[in-house]
């Protein structure tokens, strides 16, 4: 009898944990990928405020939201009022050699490799649904 009770209790615990896990996975915010025509991978997982808190970037928007003029980085100027896709187009252009997909990938991965933190492999951001 004790065994049966324990079994029921454990099953209930496991059920609740998995339910929470499944629910919380649904809630993970992602990057807005609407500009891509036919995205083949799920939108990359990204929680802006949570990320910046963990990475301690709260004060300096320009670390990610950079400004380039004539292919030179303008220091201390930031571009958070623009969309990434306003400068980075779907295909490389003479003005901007870095297309949008590459811009996203490089922006995240290069920093994660340098800081030894954060996702760097395809499926760590593009989580299969």
């Amino acid at each position, binding site marked *: 009898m004790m065994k049966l009770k324990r079994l029921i209790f454990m099953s209930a615990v496991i059920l609740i944990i998995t339910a929470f896990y499944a629910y919380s996975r649904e809630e993970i915010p992602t990057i807005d990928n609407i500009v891509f025509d036919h995205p083949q991978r799920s939108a990359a997982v990204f929680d802006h405020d949570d990320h910046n808190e963990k990475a301690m970037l709260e004060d300096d928007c320009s670390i990610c939201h950079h400004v380039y003029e004539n292919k030179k980085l303008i220091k201390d100027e930031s571009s958070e009022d623009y969309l990434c896709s306003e400068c980075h187009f779907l295909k490389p252009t003479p003005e901007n050699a870095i297309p949008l997909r590459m811009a996203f990938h490089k922006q995240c*991965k290069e920093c994660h490799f340098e800081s030894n933190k954060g996702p*760097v492999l*395809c499926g760590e951001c593009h989580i299969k649904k």
Partner: protein
Amino acid sequence: MHSFINFIMGPMVWISFLIFFIGVIFRFFQVIKLVNERENFIYTYMSFKYSFRSIFAWLIPFLPVSTRKSPVFYGISYVFHLLLFLIPIFLLSHVALLEESMQWSWFTMNDAVADILTLIVIFSLLFFIIRRIVVPEVNFLTKLSDFGFILIVALPFVTGFLAYHQFFAYQWMVIVHVLSGELMIILIPFTRFFHMFMAPFTRAYTGSEFGSVRHAKDW
């Protein structure tokens, strides 16, 4: 972990291709030296005409008689060899990585298509394993290492498939995927995978012998 992943997806790729290219050159010199030392009589009947005649005949699927005698094996073999190159070269995630590191970019196939083609490769390899066990005359010629080579080819495809679907242990799946791919590239010059380069020459040799000496077709 980040620096390890960075190493196997960065410098290790260069190291693998360097060993591959140097190995291929070394092996070609080695084979030429061996031929000159021990079999230099083949130069007396090597012929461009019979060489290319044989190579072209064997390039046409199901033209040679032996391919028509085992159509299932040769059919699977043709498809397998094509996909072995097409999938990795035109895979979206591979091209995306090349684009980021080398600014190289080309046509990519749809992920869903690549997924099915990968399964075809895995099932072809299963077929090759079963064939080596079941068909007596093939089993007679099979060594344990033959299964090893099939597994080495299977590993990057199986781990790539599992990683794409993110079934379990995603990070390790990608790590084994990358390392097994690099292992295969490194092994090409030094193992029977070298038939990738030798095939046209063995064909040319057989074609020349059949054409110039036996006055017969070799297909």
